[in-house]
């Protein structure tokens, strides 16, 4: 199995399937790896998967979700009773579990969106940052439920993904306004709630998200607005950043940038929002407070 092959599969999935997040794509890739590349022992399989994950990390895609998703996937599939006679059976079991994992994952988004529904009240103004598929789905659900609300979306440089979000919201008939990143402080007093997605959830209960999130969360705390984070549970990661600098570099920069060496002039893509600024996390495991994230993680991993 070669690195490039894995990367090809991965990028193909991303290209072809609409609206699939990097994390989901990564897990699909891993499943494909198990299916296609036959091995003789569990250990070899494990090695294969490790290689695959490593390959995907160097794809210039956001690494956070990939890393956490893959770790959880591997943990999940090996958690089964594998003391069966033949390796093929083993493999089949793992594959089966992998598929279950993926299915659960795909449903996760819907679950989260449904949980967030009661928190969007009629006439409320929601501030959101950049483009998050989960938040988008939650808003679409709310619109379907005939709720009237206004959404303010930040443009979120450098990739202007907020613009795309705005377009999608307008297309769904939701009243949306595009604002500058720097206008967050100005607009915050008019808002009712803040809804954010997350690329990763840390063990401390904080989130790693598109750059600018930290600032937004800080001003929300200052103006006493609740901050709700909508995320699937496979994004829970075991990292524990102590501050912004402590976030691993591979999360902050694209792999191509990392390999170039000098990072001092580079701009990070993500930032870390400590748990103190987050009110609630909506996950497919339930609505959690930031301190409960660690509890869930321990349950998942230990």
């Amino acid at each position, binding site marked *: 199995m070669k690195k490039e092959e894995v990367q090809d599969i991965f990028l193909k999935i991303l290209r072809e399937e609409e609206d699939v997040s990097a994390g989901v794509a990564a897990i699909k890739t891993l499943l494909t790896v198990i299916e296609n590349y036959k091995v003789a022992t569990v250990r070899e399989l494990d090695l294969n998967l490790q290689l695959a994950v490593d390959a995907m990390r160097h794809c210039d895609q956001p690494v956070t979700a990939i890393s956490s998703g893959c770790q959880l996937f591997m943990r999940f599939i090996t958690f089964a009773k594998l003391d069966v006679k033949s390796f093929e059976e083993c493999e089949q079991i793992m594959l089966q579990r992998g598929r279950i994992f993926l299915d659960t994952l795909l449903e996760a988004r819907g679950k989260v969106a449904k949980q967030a529904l009661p928190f969007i009240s009629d006439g409320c103004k929601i501030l959101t940052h950049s483009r998050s598929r989960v938040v988008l789905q939650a808003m679409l659900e709310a619109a379907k439920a005939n709720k009237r609300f206004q959404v303010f979306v930040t443009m979120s440089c450098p990739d202007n993904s907020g613009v795309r979000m705005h377009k999608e919201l307008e297309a769904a008939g939701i009243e949306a306004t595009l604002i500058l990143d720097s206008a967050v402080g100005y607009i915050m007093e008019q808002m009712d709630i803040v809804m954010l997605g997350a690329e990763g959830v840390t*063990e*401390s*209960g904080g989130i790693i998200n598109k750059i600018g999130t930290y600032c937004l969360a800080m001003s929300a705390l200052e103006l006493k607005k609740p901050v709700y984070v909508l995320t699937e549970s496979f994004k829970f990661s*075991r990292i*524990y950043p*102590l*501050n912004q*600098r*402590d976030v691993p570099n591979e999360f902050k920069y694209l792999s191509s940038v990392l390999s170039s060496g000098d990072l001092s002039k580079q701009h990070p893509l993500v930032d870390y929002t400590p*748990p103190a600024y987050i009110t609630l996390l909506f996950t497919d495991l339930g609505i959690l407070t*930031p*301190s409960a994230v*660690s*509890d869930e*993680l*321990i349950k998942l*991993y*230990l």
Partner: protein
Amino acid sequence: MGLSKENIGADQESSCTQVTTTIKRRIRRKKLRAAKFLTSVKVNIDHNTINVREYSYSNTANIVPKTQKDFDTKINSDEIKKTLDVPLKNTSLEDRIEKMSSKQGSEKTRDDVMATREAKKLLKQKAKAKNIENKDNGSTNIQLPTTIRDSETKKNISTNVIKNPPKIPVACDKINSTPSITTKAESPKSKDEVDRAIQNDNIDINADKSKELIKAERAAKKAAKQAKKKPIQESGDKNAVVAQDFTVKDVVNTLKDIVNIAKDVQAVTDKVIAIDFTTKKGEESTKSKAELRAERRAKQEAQRASKQAAQQQIPAEVKTEQPSKQVDKPKEVKHFYSKTAVEKSKPKSQGMQKMNWFQHLYTEHDKESLKQMAINSNLHPAVIKLGVQLASRVVTGSNARCIALLDALKKMVRDYSLPARTEFARGLEAQLAASVEFLWAVRPPAASQTNALKYFRYHLTQLPNNVDEFDAKKRLQEEIDRYIREQIDMAGEAISIAVRNKISTNDNILTYGCSSLIERILCEAQAAGVVFRAVVVGTRLQRGAREMLRRLLARGVRCSYADISALNYLMRDMNKVLVGAASLLANGAVLAPAGTLQAALAARAHNVPLLVACETHKFADTVQTDAFVHNEIGDPDDLIDKNDENSPLKDWRTNPNLSLLNLMYDVTPPSLVTAVVTELAILPCTSAPVVLRFKLSEYGL
């Protein structure tokens, strides 16, 4: 007798001689009788007190002129404490009396006794229900003080008299010279002097009253002897009841009593010191006194409890508030009144003033517990050794104490000989309970020790019923070894690696106080080649911080030392703060050596992340939000700077307005802690209950 006569001024001799001798004889007899009374005290107390009271008032009148001097002297609270310390039992009281007599001749003894008796009478006055009768008696005698006040001249004469007699060396060094002189003055003077003084007053007043006065004296002596067994609060009470008219005199009397009792007590203390087997500072003598006094007081309080009318206390307190005529001595007496009014039957450890909010934390001093250990107790010598080490703070630190405890338990298990027809688990459990009780009395346990003990007990109960002794012992010892290996050693290693991953290159790490785990982390990081700089912050009291600094330097860690006052100055340049913990509480709060909260606050103020390194065996399922509700009081004398000879704290015991409080631990709330590093994971503080739950399921505790 003769000696005293010579010492006394000649002017008083002639008129008084006749009366004096008879009085003397009577008084001598009384004294002997009183001594006999003492052996069967309890029965006779009431009887004596009645007598005392009758005599007391007249006596107070008599005593005033003699002790005029006392007003001028400031008596140390030390003295007073000594005198108020009435630690000796009945038998020892008799010894004391004998000693007194042997020391300085019969005259002195008698005078002493009379004076003490007077004091005691005062002390006891208020206490009994018969105070009512007292008042009745008192009313009749109220005229006396006024008459005595009139006789200013008498006072002057007596003071002159007092100045003359030579000083008689007294065992008690600490008594102020002047009061001792006055008491000595009393002692060399025979009954003659006292009688003469009395007579002077009597002559002025009334022949009838003189007889009353004599009776009063006798009663006073009895009372003094009685009062010797009772704590001073009685004197306060007595004073209080009589206070309206008698404040000055009472004070004077009590002063005299105190001085006398102080002498007695000192003599006994010397004896106690001689037999004392722990070799620490002389404070231990006071401790033994306090101990004995505590015993006596407990006894007496039990007796008195029912009799003591509540209303007596209130007027006592009210009256003691009258400051007008009162001098230093009354202030000190008042101090003790208010304390006793709280009705604490706990011993005053070393007689020190207790802080208001920390009264529940004071326990008998560890060394006293050591002494209380019975000589024929069958505690394993390793346990006793550990007790001494804990009490003298040779073994400090959560991990060290835990390992030391387990070590001692291992030895105990190894040497345990199973008595016949006893199940191994039961028998060992009994001995374990006794050992643990001793150890906890010496020093309250740390969370690590309680958890280790729980673990040990669990495995002890898991032993099958019919287990072979050898197997059982082997298994227990193995379990102990495993606990130390897994929970302390390997956990430490895991934590060390986890923290090492968090240390970036050229980090400035601040650590507070002393922790074996932190030391390990820093040394191993240095050995692994991580480039960082450490700053150790400590206080004057903590030897541990400086010791850790020494060890880090020896291992090549780049480190510096700063005092806690420099925290804010340093914090600006720090990247991380790393501290150890004594235990982690269920609400996520960190119990750590005092000063850690300070470091946490400074870190928060400068946005520096705080990491707490704590193995999971230190997690406790108690909850604490502040450091008041549960803490440990350390030795207050540690607060005194040894290098400073003129330290203002030096004589804190004698100063009623000063108490020293040395708290050992403080509680850091979870909001100030960024992360807790355990061997399981790096967790937020709020996940402490999760870990506890996890441990419960894994280790079956």
